[in-house]
């Protein structure tokens, strides 16, 4: 029972991983869900835990794609090495972007990350010898998942690749969940709540934010690399404003209360977006209406909605009304 409680979110993530193949006929779609779930997780660590609304997650996604793409294309790197490189690229970029951006708060922070996203976009566009410019980096191969020469998992067919992504996704999810539950995660929550107080009781706010940023960058870079291998290209659109926007929308759509919510958000966004686009060419209008509805009626996101439907009230997260206030309130 205790194990169930400790690992409940991981189990939910596992359920999603198993459910996707059972319900979707397309492996690519299922894989994309998991990849964007990773990106949304990275965003949630910033938004939900640190209170940083980053409009620049596309930077790390795009750089992850480019880094993995270049490594696979030119260095013939093995899969794991390419992924590590992409995470490193994401983390480094996050370090730089974060270092500049966290000097600001609130709206300024949002705008700064947005501006950085634009800057990296034009940088990628201008450096077309490296990035392929508008055409993107083409012909990225997808090697098998191997370690020390031994093949662990094949990636040739779409479902095989889904398997690899699923395993990596679960590992990343478990690690992130651990981080979120750790002393570190709890401190992030405090910083999100009141920076001045956190500093006054001894926490170096900037380092915490920066570390959160770097972790987020690495995870998003990983997502970018997996995406590059899914599609075989590292396109300019991965580093575009729209990529940042989508990741953010997924995160808010899912809800920022806990990490698993982001998985829901990503799944919903990708699947519903895919479905709507087959219904009506003006499907973006429906998406817009959906966003309006979410901000008006569903501020806890899909997760909150699910909780409300399930009637479960989790203690200690402030999303239940302060019941029993009277008894506790007076001394």
């Amino acid at each position: 029972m205790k194990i169930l409680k400790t690992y409940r979110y991981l189990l939910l993530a596992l359920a999603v991983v198993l459910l996707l193949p059972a319900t979707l006929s397309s492996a690519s779609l299922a894989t994309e869900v998991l990849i964007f779930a990773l990106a949304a997780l990275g965003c949630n660590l910033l938004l939900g835990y640190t209170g940083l609304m980053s409009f620049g997650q596309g930077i790390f996604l795009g750089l992850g794609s480019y880094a993995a793409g270049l490594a696979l294309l030119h260095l013939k790197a093995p899969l794991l090495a390419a992924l590590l490189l992409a995470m490193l690229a994401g983390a480094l970029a996050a370090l730089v972007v974060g270092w500049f951006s966290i000097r600001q708060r609130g709206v300024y922070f949002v705008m700064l990350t947005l501006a950085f996203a634009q800057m990296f976009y034009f940088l990628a566009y201008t450096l077309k010898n490296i990035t392929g410019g508008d055409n993107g980096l083409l012909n990225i191969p997808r090697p098998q998942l191997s370690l020390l020469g031994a093949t662990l998992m094949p990636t040739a067919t779409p479902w095989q690749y889904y398997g690899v992504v699923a395993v990596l996704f679960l590992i990343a999810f478990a690690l992130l969940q651990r981080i979120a539950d750790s002393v570190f995660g709890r401190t992030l929550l405090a910083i999100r709540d009141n920076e001045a107080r956190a500093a006054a009781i001894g926490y170096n706010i900037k380092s915490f934010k920066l570390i959160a940023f770097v972790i987020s960058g690495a995870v998003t870079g990983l997502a970018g690399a997996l995406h590059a291998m899914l599609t075989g290209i590292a396109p300019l659109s991965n580093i575009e404003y729209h990529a940042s926007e989508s990741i953010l929308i997924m995160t808010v759509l899912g809800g920022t209360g806990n990490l698993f919510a982001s998985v829901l958000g990503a799944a919903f966004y990708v699947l519903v977006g895919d479905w709507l686009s087959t219904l009506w060419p003006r499907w973006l209008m429906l998406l817009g209406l959906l966003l309006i509805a979410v901000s008006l009626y569903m501020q806890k996101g899909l997760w909150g909605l699910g909780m409300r439907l399930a009637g479960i009230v989790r203690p200690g997260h402030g999303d239940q009304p302060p019941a029993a206030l009277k008894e506790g309130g007076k001394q």
Partner: protein
Amino acid sequence: MTAPILSARNIVKRYGKFTAVNGVSIDIMPGTVHSVIGPNGAGKTTLFHSLTGTVPITEGNILLDGEEVGHLPDYRRVLKGIARSFQVTSLFLNLSVRENLRLAAQGRHPGQAFRLWRDAESLTAACDTAEALLERLNLAAVASRPAGELSHGQQRRLEVGMAMAGRPKVIFLDEPTSGMGIDDIGEMKRLIHGLRNECAVVLIEHNMDIVMDISDRITVMQLGQVLVEARPDEIRNDERVRRAYLGGMITGGAA
């Protein structure tokens, strides 16, 4: 003569052209309560900000236990043994009261907080400190409630508790009793008085009952400068202080 635990020399703090603190020197002796009083806007809070690192100082030196800390940011000074409460309550409003205190206790060892794998509860020292403080501050009944739901008075108590949780060498309390219930003021007074045994206390207070009763030294500030520094009985009878600050003494609440 013991050496002062904290010794500030010629502290100057300017906000733009305006000099809020103008060459203040102050020595805090260990095991004492040292009050800072003065009219509104005299620069008391600003002096606290300067000493605890909430704002960078413009000029001056601060020696803590003989070590220069004047250039350190606030979070680094906490490690050296400085803690403070705020005049305007500043809590983690969405976190539970217990978590507020645990975080404050943890802050003394912020390095631990970078452990990405450890559970917060497994670092028991901070948790124990938090539990002890809940009792001491009479907040045990509301320990699991978000701090934002407490009444003003409860929040004020927690505010002081946050500073205590850091187990500092010097604790700075900025008007800890402001907004507190009449019944609680006596309690708070005893609490502060008792703190002397653990650390040096620097106190800003407008409640003269408390100030006169528990202070060992009193510094009176006016217009950013020190007007006098003396024992309470001397202050009480100081004509300048009377004129500048005390007046007829209708403050003081109940007792």
